[in-house]
């Protein structure tokens, strides 16, 4: 949390934009700066011997884009993927990865003071992936740290 707070302080304004989306019955959000595009679901090509949350790869205008099923990644039961599912393409470093979510709801503008520290719960998910909470009109949104939800295997180029 302190890391996040200091990140806010570094920005000249305190407001920051987040994209909110739903996975299962919970709501999450990520920094809009890491989002490259949002696109509809297309069937992915299964990668052999991959982690359970890697859905496979799809063609993103000529590049091969791996898809992370956020529901599985966050420890929920895998979703039955339908046409309404959405892929959020995020960029981390030089890599592009697609996050499979149920639906994108809105873009939020929040200030530092609105971000609450994640409560100390037993959930592994909360500890690993959530770096802050936002309470808004009776909703609770968890801020995901994008880095941590990506597949961990050999992310750096082995060559």
């Amino acid at each position, binding site marked *: 949390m302190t890391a996040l707070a200091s990140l806010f302080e570094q920005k000249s304004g305190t407001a920051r934009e987040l994209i909110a989306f739903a996975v299962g019955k919970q709501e999450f959000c990520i920094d809009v700066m890491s989002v490259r595009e949002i696109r509809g679901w297309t069937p992915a090509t299964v990668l052999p011997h991959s982690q359970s949350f890697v859905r496979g790869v799809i063609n993103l205008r000529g590049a*091969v884009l791996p898809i992370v099923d956020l529901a599985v990644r966050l420890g929920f039961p895998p979703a039955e993927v339908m046409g309404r599912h959405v892929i959020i393409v995020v960029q981390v470093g030089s890599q592009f990865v697609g996050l499979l979510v149920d639906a994108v709801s809105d873009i939020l503008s929040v200030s530092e003071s609105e971000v609450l520290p994640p409560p100390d719960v037993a959930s592994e998910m909360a500890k690993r992936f959530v770096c802050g909470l936002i309470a808004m009109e009776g909703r609770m949104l968890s801020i995901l740290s994008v880095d941590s939800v990506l597949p961990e295997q050999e992310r750096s180029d082995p060559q």
Partner: protein
Amino acid sequence: MASSDMDALRQIFFQECEEQLAELESGLLEIESGDADSEIVNAVFRAVHSIKGGAGAFAIENLVRFAHVFETVLDEVRKGRLSAAGPVVETLLRAADVLADLVRVARDGGDVDEARIRSVSDELAALSGAPAAAAEADASEDNLEDLDFKPVVVDLPVFDDAPIFAEPPVAEYSITFKPHPSLYANANEPAVLMRELERLGEITVVCDTASVPPLTELDPEAAYLSWSIELKTTHGEEDVRAVFEFVDGDCDLTIVGANSAVTDPGEDDIAALLRRVREEPVELMEQVDTSLSDTTPDHQELALAGTPRDLQAAPLKAEPAKGDKGAAGEGTQPTIRVELDRVDRLMNLVGELVINQAMLSQRLLEAGLARSTEVSSGLDEFEQLTRDIQEGVMAIRAQPVKSVFQRMPRLVREVAAATSKKVRLVTEGEGTEVDKTVIERLADPLTHMIRNAIDHGLEKPEARSAAGKREEGLVRLSAAHRSGRIVIDIADDGAGINRPRVRAIAEEKGLIPPTAQLTDEEIDNLIFLPGFSTASTISDISGRGVGMDVVKRSIQALGGRVSIASRPGEGSTFTLSLPLTLAVLYGMVVTVADQTLVVPLTSIIETLKPKLSDVHGFGGESRVIALRNNFIPLVDVGRELGYRSQSADPGAGVAILVESDGGAHSALLVDAIQGQRQVVIKSLEANYGRVPGIAAATILGDGRVALILDVDAVVAGSRNGSMSPEIPLALAG
């Protein structure tokens, strides 16, 4: 100047050095082979001179110093005072190697071999002047440093003491200089030349503006001005001429020595005449040539009357030589330098265009549009255009293998010297073009194979004489296009593979059981096994921890194959067959457990429909298939990749016979074959990482990603029960 600008200039300098060094070496080799004309000698001189000039600008002192000594000798050769034959060319070639080393050290840092530079410098100094000094140099090494300065020491008192030489003779030259437009186009500047002349002595310049047209008719890129220059100088004509060296051919130039203080008028006329003859020798020669071929048909008839062997040999020999001259001389096509990144980006975009076009045709087909509609004919044209663009872009990246081949003469010299063998290298098909990425990865395996050919292949001179061969061994390196691939042969006329010894070593190292029945070919292929080395003692040349297995792997990683043909006593030929580019791959599209996979065609030997009666269980989980009196492991691809947990029914699928690492055969079981096609290779690692059993990805016509099978890894995985990622296919895009 900003340091980044300086860096950019440095970079350009070193790029140009590479070109100059290549020209230097190829020129020297031509001189060595005996068919050099003055043009080549001049080109060689210019190459060293340019490197010296550039190195001077960047204050790379040792490079300047060495280039200067080198240049002095070449100047002697150029003036015909030194005949470039035998040992002289060898020295020049060694000097070219040293020069290349100095350039490399100046660029990348590192240590220079001072002793080697010293010894080659001395050889050069011995060639260029003071033969006495050279003799002394041989006698005692301690004197070497003094000897360099000796000419200076001797000359100075002469100037001081002798009044005749105290005021050196003054000669007057009349120079007329008329630039061609090309002079300006090549960024030369008359004013700079005048300034150079002024440095030689007292000059009077008159500019002739008579041919300057009215402003309305003025072509800004034309050349209208000419100059008459009177020069009083103590320098010789050679120095005057040297001022115009770099605009040679880009201007009309006459230099006439008038009122020379040392030459009488009669001699002067002859000198002028000689000079005029020297200025136009090329044209004269050409005239003679054409008149010969035009007017003497008997000449050709004579050739026809020759033996059939002559007839065959003549065109083969003559044509490449002609082509080479054209390429090296003024016939060179204009070129531009482009960053590789830009071409790569273009290549990627074209790859996407090809995929998009395929998607579009497939969608149209699905939409049920008749084939005869205008849309589909337009689409056909689109397809044609796309193919053309793809080929065009690939052609940009294509380079002649020359860039790799021309590194080899030096290697051969060094290895020959280290092994005290006599070797002649013959290269053929240097103009054969292949994608740059392939060329880059070709250098290491080729280097290694040539080293091997000399170190292991060729016998020592004595042994060769004893066997009734020429003392000088022959290594032939040739490249050619064959059915959409490039084929490179590395052949030697050595002793051939010593099969009993190879076999003994393989048994000793436990690579094969002593009872194994092996054909000659199979024995030859043992040298590709990891852990195999024929060198009884690890030599400097070959024993660098790199075996033929590594060569084979790196060739296979390029999508290529290596084969050997060896005949005892007559030598061995290693043949590499490689794809022309790494951006696309020919593959067989197959279905496995509802997934579409691509199997690279390079590893496929044949496909067959297995009969259930031929498939046998072997041990717990393994199965083998009987094929022509052999049992070959049957690998269920779907199971290996984890697409299904139960083994597929072999009777319902197709078996693809593949050759994997080390030449072993396996049968891959897949559900169905969709067809063969060219696919654009896409990187999986860029956004994800390595996937065991998968080499890369591609995008099919329907826009979906298909995975390209890493045959070696799948086969190895089935053997070991676990998948280990091996060298992946080279990735593009």
